[in-house]
Each structure stands twice: as structure tokens, then as C-alpha cells.
């Protein structure tokens, strides 16, 4: 059993919270996991660099960001979407409104508000079903983009490897889940992380 230790660094950069997921080696990983997570980390780093305010050179000129392909820009935008919604998704999980499925995506559940923790009562009351659905859909779309980019950035992966890549992302989500979060196991059954 490979275990992944994940450290989250919350950096405040240009007024926007970006959750950088840095995956550290705690034990052996499969080659596939290494490759995918390596790509994910580099994408995460790239996203941070894009958001950096230090784009001014010693002459006082604003340095334009380096040219990026459309697909790379899509991936960075997706990472920014994930970061933007990260706090809300955490809250959704604590409320039991979403869980991590075994395809690397979020799955929506009933929006029950009666058991909301005190610090989330206000939050829960403000969120409507429509808005909730939109956020989950947007996050899932961004996750799809990121997973696709992980394939594109690895020379030895093709779109046919998408199921494996989903598996790795699902595993990552499972490992980083907090106690009480809903997760879907590989066999399709749902459980709550202890």
C-alpha cells in the first residue's frame, strides 16, 4: 500500500488564495502516480508564478508573462478555478453535500442544513441549490481539464490512459480527505472517512 503524504500550503498572493498542492514522497509510489503528480505539481507551481506580483524587473519595467499555449492557459485557469472554490468545497464536504467519487470528481448529495456545524450555519443558509450545482459543475469541469493536462504533459500517456489517471486523482482525493468526508471506494460503494 502506497501512502502519500500531502502538505497544503496556503499562500496569499495578490489577494487571491491559491491552494498549492505539493505532493511529497512518504513511501514508494507507482511510476504512473509519480508522473501524474509531478505534472500536477508543476502545473500548480506554474499557477503560482502566473499570479505572482513580482513581474517588474530591476529597471522598473513590467515584465509580460511568458507566452503560453491555449491549452496551458486553460489548465492554469482551471487550477485557479479550483483554488477559488477551495474554501467552499471544504465547507460542502463538512456539510456532507459533496463527496469525492472514484473518478477524481465531486459528487453532489442532498443539501441538508439541519445538521450544519455552528460556524457553517450561515454559510449553509445562504447557498441555494442552483448555485451549489453550478459550483460543483465548474469544479468538476476544472478537474477534468487538469486531469487531461496531466495526460498531455506526460509523453508516455495517451487519452486511453484517462481511467488510470482518474484513479490516481481519486486516490489523491481519498488520501487528503478529512475525517467525516464522503468518499467513494474503488468498488463503487460510498463510505465516510474515519
Amino acid at each position: 500500500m502506497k501512502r502519500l503524504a500531502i502538505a497544503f500550503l496556503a499562500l496569499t498572493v495578490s489577494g487571491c488564495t491559491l491552494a498549492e498542492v505539493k505532493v511529497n514522497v512518504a513511501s514508494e509510489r507507482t511510476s504512473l502516480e509519480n508522473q501524474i503528480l509531478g505534472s500536477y505539481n508543476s502545473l500548480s507551481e506554474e499557477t503560482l508564478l502566473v499570479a505572482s506580483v513580482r513581474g517588474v524587473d530591476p529597471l522598473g519595467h513590467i515584465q509580460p508573462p511568458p507566452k503560453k499555449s491555449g491549452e496551458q492557459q486553460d489548465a492554469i485557469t482551471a487550477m485557479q478555478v479550483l483554488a477559488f472554490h477551495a474554501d467552499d468545497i471544504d465547507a460542502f464536504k463538512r456539510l456532507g453535500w459533496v463527496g469525492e467519487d472514484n473518478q477524481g470528481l465531486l459528487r453532489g448529495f442532498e443539501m441538508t442544513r439541519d445538521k450544519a456545524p455552528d460556524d457553517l450555519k450561515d454559510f449553509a443558509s445562504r447557498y441555494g441549490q442552483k448555485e451549489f450545482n453550478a459550483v460543483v459543475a465548474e469544479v468538476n469541469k476544472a478537474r477534468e481539464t487538469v486531469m487531461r493536462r496531466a495526460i498531455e504533459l506526460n509523453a508516455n500517456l495517451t487519452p486511453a490512459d484517462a481511467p488510470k489517471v482518474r484513479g490516481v486523482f481519486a486516490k489523491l482525493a481519498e488520501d487528503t480527505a478529512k475525517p467525516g468526508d464522503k468518499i467513494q471506494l474503488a468498488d463503487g460503494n460510498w463510505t465516510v472517512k474515519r
Partner: protein
Amino acid sequence: MNTNRLTRAFFAAALCLGLPLGAQVAHAEQTATPAQLVAESLRPEIKRVAPRKLDVNIPLQVSYETGAVQHLDITPDGKWLAYTRIAGGYSELWLRSLDGTLSVLPRRIAPALADRLSPALSPDGKSLAFVGAEDDVKGDIYIQDLTRPDATPQRLTGRDTEDGAPCFSPDGGTLYFQQRRQGEGARHIVALSLSTLKATPRVIETGGDASAPAISPDGKTLAFVSARSGISAVYLVPTSGGAVRKLTTSQAQEATPRFTPDGRGVYFATVPYAAQGATAESLLAFSVLAVADVGGTQAPRILNTAKGASLEPMQSGSTLYFLASRSGQSNVWSLPPAGEIASRPAAEQLALADAVAAQLPVDRALAVLAYGKAAEAAGNTGPLAAKALLAQGRQFELMDLPEAAAQAFTSAGALNVQPESGFAHIRAALLGINKKYALALNDAGRRAALNGGRAQLELIAKQNADSPVAVQARLEEARLLLNSGLGSSSLLEGIHILDSLSKAGGEQAAEALYLKAEIYGRIGQGQAVLPLYARVIRNYPEQSQWADLAVQRVLDQSIAALGTGAKFEDQAQALSTISEQYRNDLPKLSLGALNRMGDVYYAADEWAKAKDAYRQALAQRSNDPNISTQLAAARLSLAEILYREERFHQALDLYETEMASRPYEDRLYRLAKAAHLRKSTAAGDYLLRIGEVPSARSIFAGLLREDTNYVPAHRGLIRASAALHTIPATLADYRHQLTAKPGDATLLYATGLCLTYLDGKAPLLEAHELISRAIMKNGQVEYFHQTLGYIDEVLETVHGERGKLEAALESYQRARFLNSREQNPENAANLDLNIGNIHFLLGQYSNAFEEYLARQASKVPFDNEETEILFYQRLGTSAFQARERDKPIEAFSKSLELVEKRIQPKYASEVFGRINKYVFDRIITPALGRADVAQKAKDLATRQSELNNQLFEISIKPAGPPPDKAWDAYAAGVRTLLASQERIIVDLPPLLKDDQETTMQTLGVMAGKVREALGFPPRFVQLRAELYDRLGLAYQEAGRWHEAREAFEKALEINTALGLNANLAANQRSVSYNAFMEAGLTTGTDRDRLLALSEAGFTRVPELVKKYGVADKQGGGRKKGLINIDLNVSLDKATSSQAAYGFSAEQETRLANTFLSRIATERGKPAQALGLVDKQLAPFGKGAVEPQDAFWRGSASAPGRIAGERVGA
């Protein structure tokens, strides 16, 4: 692809043959086998294999001459090739080795300022006979001993005869050639015994005009060409005399016979497809190779396609050599003796021909040959031959060769095999009608042509009653009426005809309905049109050609109904309505409407909406095979937009999806495949350029998964590896693969290419050996020759190996021949530059100038500014040397403009700033969040911030480029700060978790770049001075004295400021000279001022010479100034090459005094002038002028030009 009409462009390509889409042909033998190359790039789940190659022989290029090769001969052992090539206005004679294991440079034979023609090698390869024109413009026969390098050619004939086309007897003892005596019209074949050279040649009786002799291997038969029957044809006669007979029954022009090695056949060039009215010019333009048996009189067997004027076939060993201008210039090519398409059973031959005709893009010349071979295999009789000839005729029609088409249709018709012969009669009749119609001068004439044509078609219909032939004849009659433009009565007749075709089935029924709709549309019966098209789509969906056309017509008319100038939103709305309306009833039309909607949005630059429309079309998935073309159109159009949006992987996935659903023979598969290959490579290259290396690598690896022999993908992968600093690992990988497949040309090349990225001479030598081996295995890949040329260039320019530039030139020229300028314009531009550079380095400035002009005309952007600066500088220099007037000014001005932009005094600060950003973003900031190193990170952050502030302080102080003193202070400050930065870098490793080595390496490189950047301003300023000097010279050559003087003044000013004192005398002299010349164009005070300026300057020259001397007189040599687009640009090296032409100290002083005496004369001071002249003459009287101080030394120019026009050189 058309940028406004994506799906329409798709349909244009898919429908280009007018044949059903998705046509399938029998599977041929698999010839492409996938193999693993870069192990990690491959997965077991390979979905598809590479497309199978058609079983045809592609001609291989043997010579790569830039001047036309007009004649050739090859020794029987195939080792030596003698040929002529046009160079410098003459036809030169050359000998070169064809033995790939020998590295022998080509050798020019018997050079002369006269044409050398028709080389003939003796069977033992020791002698060479040829035609020379130095003593007799009509031509004489010469013979040259090739065994002695010092041998001179011996003339064998006199001025009284016109002699040509020599050939040796098989024993080498007799020379045969054609001869025309004075006063005679006809030519003869004569035989000259080489043992008694002085005897009169023996005339061989051929019964009339005879030329171009060839002798059978047993020496008993002579083949020759004669125009005795009005056209040029091959004849045979025994060498001992006897009956003359024509070789073939063909009525086509024939030329250049040569026996097969076994003597049973004769090769020759012929023009089978344009027999009628063929002229000597058409023989050259359409000639193909053929072979005919000596034994019987029969039709010749065609061996290759009518592409590039094939001539002079000859077999040596198991190779057939010939001349052809397939790649532009006439060169030597080769094929197996069987020709481009080997013999096989008729059915297989026909299947192959169909496969060839279904290619995209289609090679019609090859299709014509393939169908011809199929008919030949069928013995030109029976159903297969009829099918083949009919199809061949259609290909000729599409090639716009109506006479050849008529010939094929007539042959098919004569076989009397139905329905093909009937169809052939119809096509032949239509060709005749079209011809008459086009020639008609008025409506009456056109009506007569129409009526005549209708009568012919009705006769055919009557003769083939109740058959598809009759239906087709009536359909064509209706089409004639539709297209005649002769009024509504004709159109109504057309409808009557179509209504009568009740027995038509399948495709003919669909065509009839479609034509009917077209006619109704023409007569303005709009309400009847759409239902008819709808019936075509609904009732005959499997007839995709007609159904797809009907869809397009419905959509065209729907949009036209909105009126001209309708808004794109309205058009899109109308199309959306159609799509919804027919979604269930006519899905093909519904999808077509969505596709058209995508096109409309795309043309309006609404890409997002266009993508939505195409995606909507793709979402209407169905198993209905009849909508596959519409789905393919949507998919490929969407891919095109995604590609343009640089969403390469998504675009390529769509191509993949399209390919995965189709067999390789399918034209849509080929369309997608071609786009996939082209776009993948371009995308990979683009991503590499913008630094998205892993993504690029992924694309190249994907290409290799499909075809491990795809060389551009290997090149991309290796470039990516170089960018990632992983060349050693990649090299090891390739070496490993090579161990398993030591003879694999692609692996040999890739391994060699990896080696070129390593430092030192040894890797280059190994790369040379490996790539040479790759070329021996497969010499048809341009990149192999290109890289070999690069290696040779570096071996001479960097490692000093003499003679390599010539080899590099030859390799680059080969690469350029093999490279398709149309398909790969970027590489063509690279090769133009490479070839221009070699010519430049070899001092061949006219050639360099031509190549540089081609590079400039390509408009392909340069990889970097330094290359561009150097390019314009060299273009200017070569143009100057080629005596161009305006081009040097234009080129030097452009180079100067780029240099001015590039001189950024504080560029080093910009580069330094990147270190700061890198250290903060990638090292310190992440480390701040790690408790174990947070404090250390904070300390380093403080140091880095302080350093950054100091950098800012010194960077904002004003400083111009050198020689500004403030710049010196700035540079010193940056150097000090860089030392501090390096101390910080040394302390960074504890903050790094992964990839310490790479990060430190990167920082080291970045620091190096700061130092490099500090070197730029002085170098560019120096270059600017030199360019002003060159520009001044160019102006001076153009007689623009004023501009020349200004440019030289700038050069003088910069060199003075920079302390480049050795240049000052020459600069001052040039300023003065141009002031003097300018004075000649003015009067009054202006003239006085300029003369005074000139005098002051020339007075200063001897002082400068005395004080500082003069610059080195040596010009650029072949070791100097390497520049290659694959190399790092070295401005220092390159610009020094031609910069230092000038005079010796003594010459400078004398020149100044000469002008001072002239100025004194001009200013009315004769005594002063005389005194100066006497002063100058004194050393001559004593014989004291050294040879090196004479003006004609050290310059490429004639002595007479020195004192005057080129005095500034």
C-alpha cells in the same frame, strides 16, 4: 484549409475526385511495421498501426545538381557516373562515384570554356568519350583517358562534320556516334575503331536519318533514333548491316534508346499520352520511360509516370537510371528495372490502381500509370482492361489532358465489354462535344454542337437499350441541356429526359433526381427544388456523393433566400431552424446545417459559437453510416479551430478519433492523417519554442507511437531532450535501440543527431559516421543530409578540417532537393540560409547572394535577432561583392536598424532580475512555509531583497551604451552584485527539496547569462561601427557620396570613442574621399567647404597611420565567420570575416597625398600640388615601393578600380 469555410473546404477535398466518399478498396499487404523506439514513450495499448504504404516504387534521386544535368552515362558495374551539368553558361563534364562506401568528391573532367556533352564511359571505366565544342560549334568527338590525372582529351573528329552521341561497343574497341557531313541533311551512324584512330569512320547503313546509337551487349545490333517517318522513333539494324525495322508499333515520339543488360529489350523515352501533335517540346515535358522486347513488334511497356520529363534510361546492375526534372532541375534518378509499378496479376493491378486513385492528395500521374499497367496486365482485353482504361481516361480528364483521355476511352470502347465500353463511348462523345462547343463562335454553332452531341448520345442509348449505359447516356444528355445555356426549352427537354429514366437504379437514380432539382432551380421553380433535394437525401443516403451535394445545395439556397448581405446571425438562425426541423427526418441535412452554421460563425470570427455548432453536430452521434462524412467534417473543422487556439492536444485527439474510425484506404482517414502529421509536428515545434517542453515531448512521442520511423518526431524528441538537459539519457536510449537494430536508418540518424548536441570533435565524428550509414540505408530523407551538412560545416569552421565546407554544401543541396518547399517552407528557408552561408564562407559571393535572396523571399521569421542581424550583414556583403547597387544599402541598413534596436545598455539588469524572481518564486517562497527551513529562508529572503534593491539603484541611473563612462560604472556595479548573488546561490541548497542539481545548474546558467549580457553593448556598438563602414562603402559604390560620407563619419566617431584606433585611418580616408567626390557635384561655398573638409581629413590620415597603423589587410577566410541557424550565433566571428579589407600603411599615406595634390589642384594651388606629386614620385624613382604596398595586392578587385571607385574598401 480555407480560413472561412472549414467544412466546405473539407468537402472540397473529400469530393475532389467526384467519386463516392468513403470508398473502400481491397486491403494490400501490410508493409509498415510498428516498432518500439523510445521505450518509455510506448504503451502496450497501441490502438492503430501506421498506414500501409502503397506497393509502388518511388524514384530515388541520385544526383543533386543545381544546374541542369543534360546527359549521363554509368559504368556497367554501377560505380561511376559521368554527367554534364549547366554551370556558368556552359555544359560541364563531371565524374562522380556512385559507390556509397567511397567518400570521393566529384571531379570535373576536361574543363574548357565550351560545352561538353554526351559523355560515354568505356565498359572498363578507363576512358570517357564526349562531345566538345571548343574547336567546332557543331560538335566533335573527344576521348579522355581517366586513368591519368594529367591526361588531356584527344579530338577524334574534324571540323568538316557535325558529330555527337558517342557510345562504346561492348568490348570497348569501337566508338559509335552520329555524324552529319557537310551539305547533307540526314545524320548517319558511324563506327570508329579505337585501335586505328586515324582511319575514317565506317558508316553503318541504316536506310535513312539515324542518330543516338546504342549497341546491344553482344555487339550485334544497333538501336538508333530516326525521324524518317515524320516522328522520332526507335529502329533496330544489325551492326553488320541488314534489314532495318521499327522497334514498336507505337505512333508516339521515342528517343534515347539503350539496351537492357541481357540484350532482350530496349529502354527508351517516349510520349505515350500526348501522341497527337507531339512536338520536341512536348517530348521533353511529358516523356516517360518505356521498354520493348527486341524480339517482336509490340506496344512498349511504360515504366514510370509522366512527371518531370524522363529521358536517357539506362540499366546498370539492378538499377535503372534516368534523367528527370521531378524536383525542378533535371537530375539523375533511379528505379528498379520494373519501374514505378511492378508487374502483378491484372486484378491486383487494378486494385492497386484504385488505391492510388483514392489517395489524398492524389497522384494522378501515378494513377494513370497504374491503370495503364492494369490494362497491360489484362492483355489489353476483357472486362478488367476495359475498367482500367475507362478509369485511366477519367484520370486524364481530371488532369485536363482531353486527347489522352479520348485515346483511353477509345481503347476501352473498342474492347466491347459492357457497361465499361458503353460508358467509355459516352465519355469520348462528351469530350468531342465539349471541344466543338468550345470552338463554336456563336449560339448557332453551340446549338449545332449540342444537337450533334445529343444525337451521338441518343445513338449510344439506343444501341445499349435497357442497360445502365443507356441511362447514363440520357443523364449526360440532360446534363448537356442543363449546362448549354440555350434557354428554357432546353431545360424542359432535360426534365423530360430525366422523367423518362424510371428504370434507373441506385446512383443513377440519385443523379437523375439531383439533376432534376438543378434544372428546376435554373428555371426558377424554387418550390420544387427543395423537395427534390430532400428526396435525394432521404431516398439515396448511401449514394453519399449525391446526397452530400444535395445537402450543400439545400443549405446554399436557404442562405441565398435571405438575400445578399444578410447578417451572419440571421444566416445562423436559418441554419439552426433547418437543423431542428430535419433532426429526425433527415439527420444528414440536420448535421450539414449545423456544420454550415459553424462555418458561418467561424467566418464572422465567432469561434466559440462555431465550436458550439460543430460540437452540437458531433453530439448527434448515431450509428448511421450515411452521416459519417458530416460527422467527419464537424470533427475536423472543430479540430482546426482548436488547433488555431493552440489547444493542440484536443485538436490532435479529434484527428485521432477520425482516423481510428476508418480504414487506412479511406480518403477521410488520409485527410485526417495528413493533417495530424503536419499539425502535430508544427504544434510540437511551436510548444518547444515557447518553452512548453513536456507538452511538446508528449506530442512527438505520440507521433512515434504511430510511426517509429517518422524522422521529424525523432528530431523534435531530441530537441526536447536537449531543452530538458537529458541528452545523455536519450543518447543511451537510442544506442540501446540501435544495438537491437543496428541497420535501422532512423535509429542511426537519431543516435547521430543526439551526438551533435555533445561538445567536442569526437562526438561529431561518430555522428558523421552514423548518419553516413543512415544515408547509405536510406538516402531519401532530407534531414539526414541536412544534419550531415551541419556536421561537416562545424568540422571545418570550428575544428579546422579542410575540405569539409564543400562536402557540407553538397549535403545541404541534397537536403534541399529532397525537402518539399511547399510542405515544409521553414526547413526550405533554413536550407537556403545554410547553403548561402557555405557559399559565403567559400568566398562564392554571387551564389551566396542568390541563396540569401531566396531566404529573404521566403519571409520565414528568423529564430532570433542575432541570426537576423548577421543574415542582413552577410546579404549586404555578398550583394556588394556581386556588384549589386541598391541591395547592399538595403541589407546593411536593415542590419544596422536591428543592431540599433538591440543595443540595450542595461539589458544585463533585465537578465539579472530573472534570477531574483526565480530565487524568490521557486525557492524562497515555498521554503518559507516549511518549518524546518523557514528561518534560513527568511535570512536569505532578506539578503536577496537587499541585493535586488541595490540592483534597482544602479539600474535606474542614466547610462548610455559604451563608450559612455556611466556605462562602465554600471557594468562594474552589476559585476559586483553578481558576485553577491553567487554567494547567495551557494547558500540556497538547504532550501531545496527536489532536483537540487538541476536548480543549481539553472541558476549557474542564469548567472552566466548576466555576464554574457554585459558583453552585448560593447559588441553591438562595435558592430554598429562596422556596419556604418559597410553601409558607407555601399553608398559609395552607388555614387551616393553624401550618404556615404555621413555613414563613414558615424563609423569614425564610434571607432574613435571606442578606441578602435586601427580603423581610424581607413574611416578618415573614406570620409575625406566622399567629401571630395561630393564636392565634385557642388559649386560655390558648398564646394569650398567640402574640399576643405576633404583636405583636412586627408591631411590627418598620415598622422593616424603613423600613430595607430592600419587594420589587418586580410579578408575573411574559410575558417572565419561560421553561422548556422542550428548554432549559437557568434557575432564576433561572423562579422570579422569580410570587415578588414583595406590598404597597407604605405598605401594609405600615398593615397592621402595623391588626393591632397588633387585637392590643391582643384583649389587653384598648383605649386602645392606639384610639390606633393614630387614627394610621392620620389620613392618610385628609387624603386622603394614594396610589392605589398602596390594597390592591386590584397583586394579582389582589378587594379584599375582601386584608385578610384573602391578607394574606400
